[in-house]
């Protein structure tokens, strides 16, 4: 198993965090892992991304140039990274912020209305967790419980009160992905 993922979005959407959670969870489950963030000067806005590798063998390159999966929470990230995804790979994108699906027919594409669901949960900041839930359910790269365990270690103590809400958001993401999986793959490519 060698999962190479790029999590990408606007700075502030929490893509570095969900990447870290997958990395941490992978480590807990005994896999070889690495996490590599984008970074820039302080003044920005702009986009953020991280490269995550979860593998059954030692990680060679921590830089992901041919991802097996892409989780894109905004349009610039989808535009930039969709062409990188390897054939047969997976693209999950935030359909609340991206109108049209990526123009690729050789990969699996799952649209997740992450912002909409997060708003329904009462906190837009959980959009990243909705996408993460969908990703975990689709790839099963690490267990959802392990991710929750990782959350306790990654989040500082004072933010542990957010865990129950994040758990709900993850569950909603998982639900969206399972509905998708129960359909015929041909029919749902790019489903909204």
């Amino acid at each position, binding site marked *: 198993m060698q999962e190479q993922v790029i999590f990408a979005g606007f700075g502030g959407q929490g893509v570095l965090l969900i990447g870290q959670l997958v990395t941490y969870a992978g480590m807990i489950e005994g896999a070889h892992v690495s996490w590599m*963030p984008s970074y820039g*000067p302080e003044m920005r806005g702009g986009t953020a991304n991280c490269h995550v590798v979860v593998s059954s063998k030692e990680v060679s390159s921590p830089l992901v140039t041919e991802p097996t999966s892409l989780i894109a929470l905004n349009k610039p990230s989808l535009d930039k990274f969709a062409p990188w995804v390897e054939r047969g790979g997976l693209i999950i994108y935030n359909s609340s912020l991206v109108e049209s699906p990526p123009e690729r027919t050789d990969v699996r594409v799952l649209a997740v209305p992450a912002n909409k669901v997060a708003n329904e949960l009462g906190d837009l900041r959980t959009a990243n967790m909705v996408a993460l839930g969908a990703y975990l359910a689709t790839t099963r790269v690490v267990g959802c419980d392990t991710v929750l365990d990782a959350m306790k270690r990654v989040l500082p103590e004072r933010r542990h009160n957010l865990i129950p809400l994040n758990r709900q958001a993850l569950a909603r993401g998982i639900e969206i992905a399972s509905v998708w999986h129960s359909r015929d793959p041909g029919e749902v490519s790019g489903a909204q």
Partner: protein
Amino acid sequence: MGEKVLMKGNEAIAEAAILAGCRHFFGYPITPQNEIPEYMSRRMPEVGGVFLQAESEVAGSNMVYGAACAGARVMTTSSSPGISLMQEAVSYMAGAELPCVLVNIVRGGPGLGGIQGSQADYFQATKGGGHGDYKLIVLAPASVQELMDLTITAFDLADMYRNPVMIMGDAILGQMMEPVIPGRREKADLPPKTWATVGAKMRPKNVITSLSLDPAKLEQHNFNLGKKYRRIADEQVRYKTYMADDAETLLVAYGTCARIAQAAIDMARERGLRVGLFRPISLWPFPYDALQQTAEESLRVLTVEMSLGQMVEDVRLAILGTKPVHFHGRTGGMTPTPREVLDEIERIVEEGI
């Protein structure tokens, strides 16, 4: 052995220094290594150590000079432009034979350059950088675990040889997170610091200086340094290989580039190409003999670097014209991709060069 923790490379360096007994840190902010001084500003007070943000790298490196004179295990960290500013102190410390650990989390240059990872400071680190006949011990980790372990080693080597030791990382290694088992210091047999300037109590006074106006004396001092450097070159060569035994094409790369090269080698092997890796860990002393022997059976060598080609000069010195030495480099903060390296491997294999 402790439990595995997920750590950023920069934080692993900082924690390693603490584990190695370093209680004095002087530094100045610069991207992409700010996590080190930030970590130290939290951690040093917890262990009763000193964290001081210097007004510049010039000052910070001279604070290191001072603390080293006073017998401390001391470290400073920076990135390329800051390391350039430290060269005066580095030369003085090498001249005065002071132990200390310097970390360069290299970024793209020259000048202000950029803040993405690079290996373009190889010449500066291994061939001088400052003035005079001197050598730094230069170690190049390729993983977060190695950043931790080699930083701990660096403190012992510094004390063992009374010489500055540099950890040469890059922005990718500094920023990435990997699982680490916090290292432990093996108690090395280190000489007591009888030379330190701690007050001339019950002994003749100690003087630490790099001044020597009598050229004959200065020459003798340089000869002594040279003897020490030869001893280090005999004792401290470090390298690793990967699938090198049957390699027709031998890649040579260090740090992040070695990781990328390894990915390219896996791809090449899947295509049936016999490719392997020689990874120098000590950039100085450079593993000339080991590389020459490893490459003995290979048809060709390909050096991969994040620079215009710096280490490749040492690779050529090791190979001494016995076979072609090719070079593939990206620079300015760009990183070669495994695919790109594979293409280069295929090209030179096909052309039989």
